[in-house]
């Protein structure tokens, strides 16, 4: 399985004394390669966990949408395709800048890391700003679920169900972005101080995976929430 890890450990096992160890290599790893593979796998397992976490929400969405397609369509028509579309573009662009930040890390360019991470944070901020505008529209239109909710058309309970899921899914997604942006800010500071090298940039790689995952969630949320029944049928 772990071919390179095994290869790197196949030689005579030596415990390097603390002084000779490279900076950033934890005490219980033999090599940077082993440490990096461990953190990469760990991050992916965390994302698998995230897949299942969001998966439960998607399951509820599928069950209710197949049960009440008309209500979901009329709920979806209340969402603003333009804002949703712009946000999709913004978020994918932030994924691009994130990928470039990792690329800069692989090349060992600290300045590049900082620039691309700041761009990523900014794009994330734009996304959340637009999301806030959308949320406040919904608030004024009385489309936020709860006692405040109003709906004139047919099947109000299930239209509300659409908005329950809309807010739960986009809300959790936005929460993930806030967490991601906070982590990115910390990493930008560290990168500015030159904490990352060509060998040792696990953290950037890991946070990058997380950010792309958040992007993927949106890639599915956008058509499932915004684009229902737009063909007028």
């Amino acid at each position, binding site marked *: *399985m*772990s071919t390179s*890890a*095994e290869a790197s*450990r*196949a030689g005579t*096992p*030596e*415990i390097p004394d603390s002084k000779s160890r490279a900076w950033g290599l*934890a*005490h*219980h790893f*033999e090599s940077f390669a*082993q440490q990096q*593979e*461990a*953190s990469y*796998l*760990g991050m992916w*397992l*965390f994302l*698998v*966990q*995230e897949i*299942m*976490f*969001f*998966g*439960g*929400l998607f*399951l*509820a969405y599928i*069950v*209710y949408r197949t*049960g*009440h397609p008309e209500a979901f369509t009329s709920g979806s028509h209340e969402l603003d395709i333009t804002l949703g579309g712009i946000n999709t573009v913004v978020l994918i662009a932030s994924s691009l800048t994130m990928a470039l930040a990792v690329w800069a890390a692989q090349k060992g360019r600290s300045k590049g890391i900082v620039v691309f991470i700041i761009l990523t944070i900014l794009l994330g901020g734009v996304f959340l700003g637009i999301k806030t505008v959308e949320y406040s529209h919904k608030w004024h239109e009385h489309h936020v*679920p*709860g*006692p405040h909710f109003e709906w004139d058309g047919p*099947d109000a*309970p*299930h239209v*509300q*169900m659409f908005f*329950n*899921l809309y807010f*739960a899914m986009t809300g*959790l997604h936005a929460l993930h972005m806030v967490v991601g942006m906070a982590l990115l800010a910390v990493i930008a500071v560290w990168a500015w101080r030159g904490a990352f090298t060509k060998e040792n940039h696990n953290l950037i790689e890991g946070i990058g995976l997380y950010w792309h995952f958040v992007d993927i969630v949106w890639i599915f949320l956008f058509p499932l929430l915004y684009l229902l029944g737009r063909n007028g049928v």
Partner: protein
Amino acid sequence: MSAEPTGRTHYLNADYGVKSWLLTIDHKRIAILYLISITVFFALGGLMAVLMRLELATPVGDMVQPDTYNRLFTMHGVLMVFFFLLPSIPAVLGNFLLPLMIGAKDLAFPKINLASWYIYSIGGLFTLWSMLHGGVDTGWTFYTPFSTAFSNTYVISTAVGVFITGFSSILTGLNFIVTIHRMRAPGLTWFRLPLFVWAHYATSLVMVLGTPVLAITIFLLGLERLFHIGIFDPALGGDPVLFQPMGWVYSHPAVYILVLPSMGVVSEIVTAFSRKRIFGYKFVAYASVAIAVLGFLVWGHHMFVSSQSPYAGVIFSFLSMLVAVPSAIKVFNWTATLYEGSISWDTPMLYALGFIGLFTIGGLTGVMLATLGIDIHVHDTYFVVAHFHYIMVGGALMGYLGGMHFWWPKITGRMYPIFWSKLSALVIFIGFNLTFLPQFLLGYLGMPRRYHAYPEDFQVLNVMSSAGASILGIGYLIPLVYFIWSMRYGKRAEDNPWDAFGLEWETSSPPPTHNFLETPTVSLEAYDYADREEKRRAAEVSASGAVEPG
């Protein structure tokens, strides 16, 4: 602990003081932190069980109010499942032993390991807080719509506690998987791994893949209850039954989080005390993974009578029986390992044999419950209660205690008293069966679970069960006392008191902070006692040849 005569430094005396424990990233110390916390929760959960059995000693509900009784069984379930059984073997024994067994200095992510303990503790505090304020009465499954629309107890704070604790479980599983993949000592191939490690690998898969679904389900439950929106509430357009598959997607596989590690422990003990290679190593190893995977496909057996489609019912019935196959493979292979082995009856072995017997009963009654017709008859009766206690107490808990007795000398460097430990195994076995065998009959005769009063006809069996519970309670107290006693007065343990196989026995007892003074290399197959004997003999011969000239 008294001073070390040899003056040797190990993980326990390397540092003293509260900070050296609360900020430790040593997996062995974190295991001890878990051990203390789960023991507290076990005691609390046990107390609730005692109160319930006292109430049920008489048919009339006189000791506690019905509302109180509802809270008792709910908190008993929540504490025992989420705060004792789920972390028991993985977080204590797994944490302690995994790195030792694979010859690593620590888990892959030591800081995340410590964070898991804190997350677990925070979740525990939420739950304790709700308990002190009056508890919850929804049953440990938090079924909607009762939990969201009707119950006026502390549902949210308890659910938040369970939600938070879930992430401790996820992080532990993640840590284990990465550790097993990336940290094995040179020469330790997958099929040389101890079966304990295989079992924990399978357990970790369930933890990582299943727990998040429970988390999101609880999240939705909290949303609904907090903001009065209808995700499950039928009055607001929701489907209350949707909560059940979403909850059981995790909660059935959770049973395998409890019992798989226990099976791993039993595989270790049975080989060590039969002095034989395990029969069908690969079958036992793959059976762990098969149980983990199949365990995800069977949750519908909890919904046979709750508006689930009968077609789905048939499929779930079939899939549930399928899980019996890998489970039976394990039982047969342990039995075959015993065959013609040179068996010694030390305390861990008594517990392990107890596990095999009780788990078999629990498993077979599980097959009965997976059968649609029988399930409809005994649904929500004491038959079900008895069945899952045979799995979760007779199985998981016996394995945990067996493991504690097996590795206690390694963990603390001390031996416990032999007589008392054997007595405890016997008392627990008798007490357990006396408690739960009558419950099979009660359930079959139609006594429903979760009531604090019952018709007089059921009293004899209920008194037997309550009497058994008191014996069981004493049985649990005995090890608690002698384990604590042994830490100060116990005989010093050798590095390998059982002459068992495995890397954890090759380091000293208790192990040094970084586990091994030199990274070990592995050249033997797992449990190859015969080969090891041969090598030892050869070494003796060459040694004696060197001393005696000619």
